């Protein structure tokens, strides 16, 4: 191998490494977080721009993981939304399907594709933020290395592929090097940072490192929502039949 070839490899190899590694990091992060099922009780605190706070709570059940999963969220507070439920069916090859059940009118309602940028029940999470990210629907590249809450992280940029409908033009994801937990997301519309998700209270639950507190900040509205996961359990026996539109009304 002559010096010219060696120089070429030295120039190209880091580029190849960066082209492959970010996706592998995301895949490894998802592999470590994968479980057959998940259940938790979520306490949501919504803090408006003027500082006024309101809270909501729900129970979340999930069957499957990453791109091929089903989730049912049932609200338990505030009182007027008690019993309202949401079914999210994620597909590996297309956008997820979502239905909402409103017990007061005994009606399930399909949520349209373009609805996903809408805030979820007045929180700072949009419907899309509640979907899982399927690695096959995004392109990744390495941005750098930074520290979040004292923990060294890889900073990776993800852009939705043309086949993926997303409100976001791109996202930056910080993956912790020690446990591969996503410590922060920054979501952009064009060049404007619109939402930041900050994960804290990272604990090992049944050998899965999990952020039990997620703070979503909407930088346009200057409001934020903190989701705390309580009674979190993984790999519980759950039936497929519990994740259908008809099961929402049970």
């Amino acid at each position, binding site marked *: 191998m002559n010096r010219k070839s060696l120089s070429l490899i030295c120039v190209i190899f880091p580029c190849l490494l960066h082209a492959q590694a970010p996706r592998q990091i995301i895949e490894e992060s998802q592999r470590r977080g994968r479980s057959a099922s998940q259940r938790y009780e979520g306490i949501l605190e919504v803090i408006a721009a003027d500082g006024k706070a*309101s809270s909501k709570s729900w129970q979340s059940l999930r069957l499957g993981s990453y791109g091929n999963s089903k989730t049912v969220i049932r609200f338990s507070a505030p*009182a*007027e939304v*008690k019993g309202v439920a949401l079914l999210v069916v994620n597909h590996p090859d297309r956008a997820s399907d979502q239905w909402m059940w409103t017990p007061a009118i005994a009606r399930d309602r399909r949520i349209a594709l373009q609805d996903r940028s*809408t805030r979820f029940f*007045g929180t700072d999470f949009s419907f899309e933020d509640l979907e899982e990210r399927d690695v096959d629907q995004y392109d990744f590249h390495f941005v750098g290395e930074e520290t979040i809450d004292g923990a060294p992280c890889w900073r990776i940029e993800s852009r939705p592929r043309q086949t993926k409908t997303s409100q976001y033009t791109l996202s930056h994801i910080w993956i912790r090097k020690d446990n591969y937990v996503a410590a922060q997301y920054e979501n952009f519309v064009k060049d404007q940072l619109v939402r930041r998700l900050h994960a804290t209270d990272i604990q090992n639950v049944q050998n899965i490192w999990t952020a039990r507190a997620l703070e979503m900040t909407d930088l346009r509205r200057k409001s934020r929502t903190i989701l705390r996961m309580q009674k979190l359990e993984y790999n519980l026996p759950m039936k497929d039949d519990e994740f*259908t539109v008809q*099961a929402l009304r049970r």
Partner: protein
Amino acid sequence: MKLLLLLTLPALAQAQLTQRGFLESSAQLYPDTTANDSGHVVGESLFRYEAFYKLIDLSFSAGFDARFDTHRETTRDLDFSWFDRTRQRPLFAIRQVGATYTRGKLTVEAGKQLIRWGKTDILTPTDRFAPRDFLNVVDNEFLPVTAARLTYGTQSDTVDLVFEPRLTPSRIPLLNQRWGTPIPLQEASPDFPAAPQYGARWNHIGAAAEYSLSFYNGFDHLPLFRLQPNFAVQRFYPQLRMYGADAAVPLGPVTVKAEAAYFISTDPQSDDYVLYVIQLERQAGEWSFVAGYTGQATTDHRSTFGFSPLRGFARAVVGRASYTVDTNRTVSLEGVVRQNGDGLWLRAEYTQAFGQHWRATAGIALIRGDPTDFLGQYRLNSQALLALRYSF
């Protein structure tokens, strides 16, 4: 006994009791009086309580309404009416009571319950097991029916079979009040059908669209009227068969929802007709828009006199826009305009939540039109609404 205890203890350990309800007090303010009603203000309070007890495969529900109003839309009698066939609203009513058995893909529900079919929002022609309280015509709520319902389904296909042994009719406006007819009428005892009704619906969820086919055989929950020999008017509920279809197609910029039903009847006084709705939905940030058209085609005209808001709202452009200001505040505007311009109904509403339990609503409804039009006949019933709800 010990064996029974051992068998039931695990189930009881997993049992869950949940409950919810609200107390709502509201005032409707009418600037105009009508020929048969000189009142300007109607006050009403409704207390609703619902409880659910869930074992592993079996769950039970029970709920009741207690209401009172200043205008005698609610009876003062303590008579109990299981099938909700009274002219006035009952003082106490069973909202729901029943049992649900779930086993795999099968769900069996029996008792008093709300059953909803269809996909559109403003008008739902296929929603045959959903009678309503039309005492205030434009501000109506669904009434529960006593039925057995069997649902068998997967994520993609669901079959729904419903059997209702006795008809629960929609409640129509009181004759001596502003939503009733201004012509003084004597009313004979209604002629309620004794036979049961039943229906079936198949729903398919596909990658590109969700659609369903439905069938109903029974009686119309909206009445026709016949004149008795003593010139009294009698309500009756004609035999009705419905063939229906509905669909939701999520497209890029909008979601298209459509619903159509063909109604035929063996009753010599009842029309055969088609009702259809096509609506477009779009969510843009905190805005939500629904706009559509409701159409009707009468294939065999036979009826002379009836009360049907379902058909009365047809041949109209309908729309709704709502804006979520923040977690606690919502503004909405909805309306119906008849295609011939003879009837108009517009409603603007503002709601604000306070803390975990309280919500206040303020709104105005404008009704205009020709006295011969279904909507226009209520042109003196434009109103302002104030409501306060405590939920628990």
